[in-house]
């Protein structure tokens, strides 16, 4: 039976290798790099869903600036880039000028700029403005409008809608900053990755026009940089972890066969984990992959168990060795799979991925050892090795009650005392280190295009109908008057506001009729204006949504959701504090960062309680299994491992977050076993010490590799696990000494 299963598993491994190669070559293996993808999504409320959708849309926005001292070069390159954007479907070809005119000219009496609203309060200012415009260098443009728009309201409306400083040339928006002309090309990516053709075009542009300044911003830029960094780091961590395992195994067994079979067991586990996670989650996050890679060493533990037994009991056949260790190994695998499997039921995609990845890696490693090892490893090298000699010496220190273990214990306790000063910080921004040069470029682009505010921070406004929503948006705008707000109310006033606008115009014409006539306007022109004021139609939301040639603004209008209407208003940074405290009905201040940080804080708090419960549960189990005294001693390394790891974070200047807690759980699940092995020992403490050192060293090497990562998450986990597992292994003989004494007493 085992032979059949062994063949099946061997065949499955070959198929998995082929699948991996195919996936790798055709690019179907997809990895995520956005830190927010790792976090739980609140999607219960419609507001949450709208915020999430908006955040997703914004994360796919891309802005490219092509700057040059020559305006014509900027226009030329901008036009080429714009055509590429259109051909790639990132933006639409629109007759912006014509569409703006067709939409707004018929509504010139309904939609007024703020400047015009103020001006209309004083009819003398209205006539002065008309006169001024007609005497300006562009008087010909205005004179052509006079017949249809005698108050020249439309030019004011348009100038209020075009971002300050932006001019359009051949449909390319241009801005002049620092003596340079910048063409601004923007669009929406189909996903968070930059299309290859666009990337190639930008590269060619830089080569073709060395004097051009090419800048682009958007999440995709961060994602591609972080993704390539993470991929590099995953490969370094995996290689380092593998190398560590290789060295340790070689030093221990001084033979190539154990090395190869251990790599096979770990590799099989990792392969199974990658393929199943990719299939189940669709995309595997690089941080989960990196963390999962550290478990390469953990997966090797089953191999060590088998090899150590073969080495210690060479007189037994491989099948007998397997039979001897099978119950313990199977129990270990089940508890590991269950332990990691629990993470799959948390609301955190990150923990789900790590949990499933680790459980599968452990299961794959276990299957390989159980099914393939007896055929592969028959007679390993027998004899004393460096690790076993080190283990034996260290054990003798404990037995002789040398001062060294006591000193180690005191040091660990001292380190734990630092844990008193632990500080927490749940700010999600602390979980990802963004490349400083990219952050600086993003800020520079915002400065050039004069775009303030954070797309992750906005006001979500709701109304029972479109009119109520628009009125509430206007209330927000009035409350924050003087600050830069990007909302739809400037472009789509409520019906009541449109009526007020007409009324303001009517009053201005009535009171300023004489002045308008004195400018030279004909009586019939003014009468026509008055007739149109009552007869023309109002601008409706549906008309605006259908016709407004402004995709950025349309994204702010979220339409009808579950019977209510929603829109978003972006607020500049200086206004955020005031905006977030607005006590207006139906207005929610939405701060994605604060919200996610709050969720992280909640999970950290709950996670802390869960960790304490886990410790309590394990302690009760140990008390039951080993009795109060030995059970208590077994718990000592586990408890001090966690407290000293927290102390290390204080010394390292880290502030504790949810990821530290995850790492503490790993320390508990991995580290507690070391003392248990001794407590369960049957008089073979030296072999146990060797096995513990072997397991711990491979795990510590793997986690130590995380300390080199640029990701704060991985560094946090690395520090906790390295310190925690080191303390676990250093203090683990405490259970051996005690159990030895007890055995002596029993005998």
């Amino acid at each position, binding site marked *: 039976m085992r032979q059949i299963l062994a063949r099946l598993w061997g065949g499955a491994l070959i198929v998995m290798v082929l699948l991996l190669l195919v996936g790798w070559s055709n690019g179907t293996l997809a990895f995520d790099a956005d830190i927010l993808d790792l976090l739980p999504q609140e999607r219960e409320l419609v507001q949450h869903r709208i915020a999430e959708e908006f955040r997703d849309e914004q994360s796919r926005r891309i802005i490219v600036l092509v700057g040059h001292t020559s*305006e*014509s070069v900027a226009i030329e390159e901008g036009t080429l880039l714009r055509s590429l954007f259109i051909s790639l479907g990132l933006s639409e070809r629109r007759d*912006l*000028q*014509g569409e*703006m*005119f067709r939409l707004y*000219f018929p509504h010139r009496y309904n939609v007024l700029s703020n400047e015009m609203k103020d001006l209309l309060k004083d009819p003398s200012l209205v006539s002065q403005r008309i*006169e*001024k415009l*007609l*005497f*300006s*260098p*562009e*008087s*010909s*443009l*205005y*004179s*052509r*409008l*006079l*017949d*249809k728009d*005698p108050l020249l309201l*439309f*030019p004011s409306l*348009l*100038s209020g809608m*075009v971002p300050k400083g*932006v*001019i*359009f*040339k051949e449909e390319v928006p*241009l801005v*002049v900053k620092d003596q340079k002309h910048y063409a601004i090309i923007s669009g929406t990516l189909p996903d968070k990755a930059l299309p290859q053709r666009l990337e190639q075009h930008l590269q060619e542009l830089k080569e073709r026009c060395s004097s051009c300044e090419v800048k682009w911003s958007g999440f995709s830029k961060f994602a591609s940089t972080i993704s390539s960094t993470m991929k590099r780091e995953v490969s370094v961590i995996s290689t380092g972890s593998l190398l560590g395992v290789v060295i340790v195994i070689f030093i221990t067994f001084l033979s190539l066969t154990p090395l190869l079979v251990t790599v096979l067991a770990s590799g099989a586990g990792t392969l199974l984990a990658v393929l199943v996670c990719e299939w189940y989650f669709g995309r595997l996050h690089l941080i989960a992959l990196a963390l999962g890679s550290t478990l390469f060493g953990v997966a090797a533990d089953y191999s060590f168990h088998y090899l150590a037994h073969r080495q210690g009991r060479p007189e037994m056949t491989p099948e007998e060795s397997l039979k001897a260790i099978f119950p313990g190994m199977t129990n270990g695998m089940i508890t590991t799979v269950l332990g990691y499997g629990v993470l799959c039921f948390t609301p955190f995609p990150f923990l789900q991925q790590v949990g499933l990845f680790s459980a599968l890696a452990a299961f794959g490693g276990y299957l390989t050892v159980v099914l393939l090892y007896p055929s592969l490893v028959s007679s390993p090298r027998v004899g004393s090795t460096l690790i076993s000699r080190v283990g034996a010496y260290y054990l003798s220190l404990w037995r002789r009650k040398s001062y060294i273990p006591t000193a180690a214990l005191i040091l660990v306790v001292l380190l734990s005392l630092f844990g008193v000063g632990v500080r927490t910080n749940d700010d999600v921004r602390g979980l990802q280190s963004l490349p400083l040069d990219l952050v600086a470029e993003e800020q520079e682009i915002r400065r050039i295009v004069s775009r303030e505010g954070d797309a992750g921070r906005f006001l979500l406004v709701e109304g029972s109908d479109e009119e109520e929503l628009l009125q509430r948006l206007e209330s927000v705008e009035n409350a924050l008057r003087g600050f830069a707000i990007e909302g739809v109310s400037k472009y789509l006033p409520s019906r009541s506001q449109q009526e007020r606008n007409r009324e303001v115009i009517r009053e201005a014409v009535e009171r300023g009729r004489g002045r308008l*006539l004195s*400018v*030279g*306007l*004909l009586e019939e*022109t003014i009468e026509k204006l008055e007739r149109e004021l009552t007869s023309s139609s109002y601008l409706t939301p549906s008309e605006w949504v259908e016709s407004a040639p402004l995709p950025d603004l349309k994204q702010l209008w979220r339409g009808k959701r579950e019977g209510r209407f929603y829109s978003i208003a972006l607020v500049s940074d200086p206004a955020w504090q005031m905006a977030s405290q607005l006590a207006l009905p139906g207005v929610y201040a939405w701060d994605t960062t604060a919200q996610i940080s709050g969720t992280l804080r909640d999970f950290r708090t709950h996670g802390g309680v869960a960790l304490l419960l886990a410790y309590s549960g394990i302690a009760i189990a140990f008390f039951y299994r080993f009795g109060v005294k030995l059970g208590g001693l077994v718990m000592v390394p586990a408890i001090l491992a966690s407290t000293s790891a927290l102390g290390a974070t204080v010394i390292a200047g880290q502030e504790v977050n949810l990821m530290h807690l995850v790492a503490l759980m790993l320390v508990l699940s991995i580290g507690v076993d070391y003392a248990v092995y001794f407590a369960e020992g049957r008089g073979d403490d030296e072999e146990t010490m060797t096995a513990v050192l072997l397991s711990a060293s491979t795990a510590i090497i793997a986690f130590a590799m995380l300390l080199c990562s640029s990701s704060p998450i991985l560094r946090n986990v690395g520090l906790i696990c390295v310190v925690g597992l080191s303390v676990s292994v250093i203090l683990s003989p405490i259970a051996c000494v005690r159990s030895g004494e007890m055995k002596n007493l029993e005998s």
Partner: protein
Amino acid sequence: MGTLHKVILLTSCLAFTPLYALAEECSYSDISFEEEAITPSPKLTALLARLRQIGSFSIPYIQTKRIPVLSKPLISSGIFTLREGKEIEFRQERPFSQKVIVKADELVRESEGKRESWNMKSLPQGAKMTVALLSLFSSDAPRMLELFTIGISDREKRSLVLLTPKDPELKRYLNTLAVTATKRIEKIVVCESNGDSTVIEFSEK
């Protein structure tokens, strides 16, 4: 003010604004002109040479702008300055003060302490109009012939130079530009395609 809405205004208004009858100043049918060939005639060369001699100068002006939909003309006055044929300045004093400076690549307006400038390349018609005005004042005959069909009529020691745009884009904007000159330019009449007409009269100091 952005170029966007200027262009919108221009293009869209052209579509529906009725073409008004030309103002009286814009009627030249009873005057016979000698049309210039591709190379400037001796008459034009002599006229331009005469104007060129004047170099930089400042002179008072009165501008009368007639817009068909207005019941009365818009009249402004101030000081006109030409600087080495490279820069024109209209320093308007009435009905309110403002300064408009026209260069080959830039249009600047200063009014009520505010300064606005436009890049000429982003205003095609405006740019050509400016080039036309500058070429006229700098007596750049080849440039003038490139942009306009030029007719000259002499009467009582006065020369009337009529410039009709060749460029279709400029034609949509401008009908004729007429210059009356003796030793100096006395009057400019700009007749626009929408029926607006502007008369700028220069007087002796």
